[in-house]
């Protein structure tokens, strides 16, 4: 069942190598900061895509899991006391696992509805988590936020541990997507995306498939949150559980091509450095909001399938028999995903 192609393996190896080598070549701290956020959003967009792109269930509240990951890290640090240094990193996979398991009941409830209702419900989840972060003051300190120990890393290579942690999560997310897409679960999700009722009628266990996708995606989405909490040192409810994090991840997945494996990463590579650069040189979050808004609208209206699928279409465009019918926004076919 698994379709392992040499080209796919080569792409994976190339990205891994480039990611590992980057900090050794580029040492300026401010560039490393941009790199950390780029890899973080690449991871977030990829794990969102596992649910949104593969199954068609667009979750607009995934930032809730990011926030839960961030707070879990801070809470473990503050209330249980794991110590500083490298130990907070060790908590990250455990947090991911914990969030994935905790997401099971949420998934079962939320996946009873579809389409726009599902999206609205996930937005509500976001606001519930934010409200809980504000109000469970004995646990989260409410609006006063939580802090973590100052990391003891040497100044010259301060960013490296965070970068590698984010890179590990990103590569893990890509690996998960690849395993899913080349396996039976992937076929089930694509079938659900195309026509859920028919898939159900054909005997596919749609609920199980959706719940697994939701929970894995949630767990993967939480892990960058935990690393981020340690990196920033301070987390506050309105910034840890922030709708703009979801919008960013969704935008990047859409830009690069949802339903593809490397699309979200491509989207992140384009948008994050641009946004970081603009934020420093331009500031004015109003312009940044308008910018997000404009880019999003342009993509939705002109290139709704994203860069990678559009590139693929261009590549085969000369053969009229390969051309999909319709005005361009037809659903990506099930074979349209390859590593």
């Amino acid at each position, binding site marked *: 069942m698994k379709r392992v192609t040499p080209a796919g393996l080569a792409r994976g190896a190339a990205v891994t190598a480039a990611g590992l080598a980057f900090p050794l070549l580029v040492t*300026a*701290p*401010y560039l490393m*900061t941009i790199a950390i956020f780029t890899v973080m959003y690449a991871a977030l967009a990829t794990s969102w895509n596992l649910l949104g792109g593969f199954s068609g269930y667009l979750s607009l509240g995934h930032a809730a899991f990011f926030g839960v990951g961030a707070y879990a890290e801070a809470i473990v640090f503050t209330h249980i006391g794991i110590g500083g240094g490298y130990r907070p990193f060790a908590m990250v996979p455990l947090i991911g696992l914990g969030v994935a398991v905790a997401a099971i009941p949420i998934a079962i409830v939320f996946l009873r509805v579809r389409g726009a209702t599902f999206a609205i419900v996930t937005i509500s989840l976001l606001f519930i988590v934010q*409200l809980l972060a*504000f*109000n469970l*003051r004995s646990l989260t300190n*409410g*609006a*006063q*936020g939580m*802090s973590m120990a*100052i990391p003891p890393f040497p*100044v010259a290579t*301060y960013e490296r541990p965070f970068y590698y942690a984010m890179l590990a999560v990103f590569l893990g997310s890509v690996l998960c997507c690849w395993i899913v897409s080349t396996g039976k679960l992937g076929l089930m999700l694509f079938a659900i995306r195309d026509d859920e009722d028919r898939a159900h009628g054909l005997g596919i266990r749609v609920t199980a498939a959706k719940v697994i996708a939701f929970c894995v995606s949630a767990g993967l989405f939480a892990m960058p949150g935990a690393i981020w909490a340690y990196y*920033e*040192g*301070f987390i*506050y409810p309105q*910034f840890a559980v922030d709708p703009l994090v979801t919008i960013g991840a969704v935008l990047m997945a859409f830009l690069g091509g949802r339903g593809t494996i490397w699309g979200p990463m491509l989207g992140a590579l*384009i948008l994050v450095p*641009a946004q*970081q*650069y*603009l*934020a*420093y*040189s*331009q*500031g*004015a*979050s*109003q*312009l*940044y909001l308008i*910018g997000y808004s*404009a*880019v999003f609208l*342009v*993509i939705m209206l*002109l*290139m709704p399938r994203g*860069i990678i699928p*559009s*590139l693929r*279409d*261009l590549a085969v*465009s000369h053969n*009229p028999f390969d*051309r999909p019918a319709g*005005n*361009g926004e037809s659903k990506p076919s099930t074979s349209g995903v390859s590593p």
Partner: protein
Amino acid sequence: MNTRRNRFVVTVTVVVMAVIAAACGGGSSSSSGGSSASGKPLVIGISLSQSGDFSDPGHAAMLGYQLWADSVNKRGGVLGRKVVLKIVDDASDPNQAVTNYQTLITKDKVDLVFGPFSTLLTAPSARVASRYGYSFLEPAGGGQLVFDQKLHNVFFVQPAPTVNCGDPFVDYLSTLPASQRPKTAAYPTLDDPFATPIVERARAKLEALGVKTVYSQVYPAETADMTPIVAKMVAAKPDLIFGGTQSLDAYGIVNGLVQQHYNPKFLFLSNGANSAAEFPDKVGANNTEGILSCTDWFPELKTAGNAQFVSEYLAKYGGTADTIDGGSAEAYAVGQVLEQEAKKTGKVDNATIISTLHSGVWPTVEGNLSWDQYGAPTGSQLMTQWQSGKLVPVWPQATALAAPTSPKPPWGG
């Protein structure tokens, strides 16, 4: 088929053009002062909230910083070096502030940094500065979060930590005869890094003074409607209402009290009521009489350089003394501290600044300041009161411009 290729090309072009246009279109704002200084410029990096939730106070801080830079450059700069401010916007986001300071220090290699607006942004930014060995003089991060980090490079340039806001009020009450003091108190508190600790501290002191707590409620920041809270508070009939507030909720509490026809004997609001221009506009000019608040600065205070600051400010920016936002004075004071440190030691490297400022008394428009080892100032805040439509400082008596009045007169309606 052409349509698909066209659309792809168009999209890419549009996105790329947008990015290029935005990149070319702007630059970070920076300011330099007059021309009578020579020598290598002294570049000071600052992350300010020029957009987002804190854009108004961030703007006030920027005016203060620039005013100081112009002023000191006219006097020959700092140690003969012209002061150049490099100000970048953090959009009121702590993460952006952290990134900004890191970039200012490691990419732009600024000589010094000054602090941003608000404790939320100051606390994580101070860490960045500390990591690179930079001193961190900051005008607006007075919450306990900042001092709890136990950093040695931080100096909060105001008379007292924000949490001490209620201290002058408690001191004043203790001078009143027992029959005039409030017997019962209500504590509506915003869930906020500033407001909550202020109320906790004040409440402990007031209870020690024998004032009974009849209502205490923390409400979330997004509470749109204060009326249910006010209703419940009014039902307990408190003599004193001590509110840990910011702006929105302070206005809501006052409006709610007016609508429900309840006039407490004492009304203290930690924030919102100390804004000379905004407060009467939001609650009605004839509803302000007798309301108490706290502040760190006042235009008519007789502090070091204050008269000159006010006149320079009005000359450069216009308006009247009442419209000067305290944030500008705070920022100006930061510059004053640096100027004096330079005069005293002849050096402006970060290590010298850090070691020098932990001892001694440093006069500024905010008062004569001194700090403990973690950057907390050791002085006292001012209590203000609205009297005849004007906001005046009334406590401590040494720096007051009028005597406090009590009890609070009825609502003007």
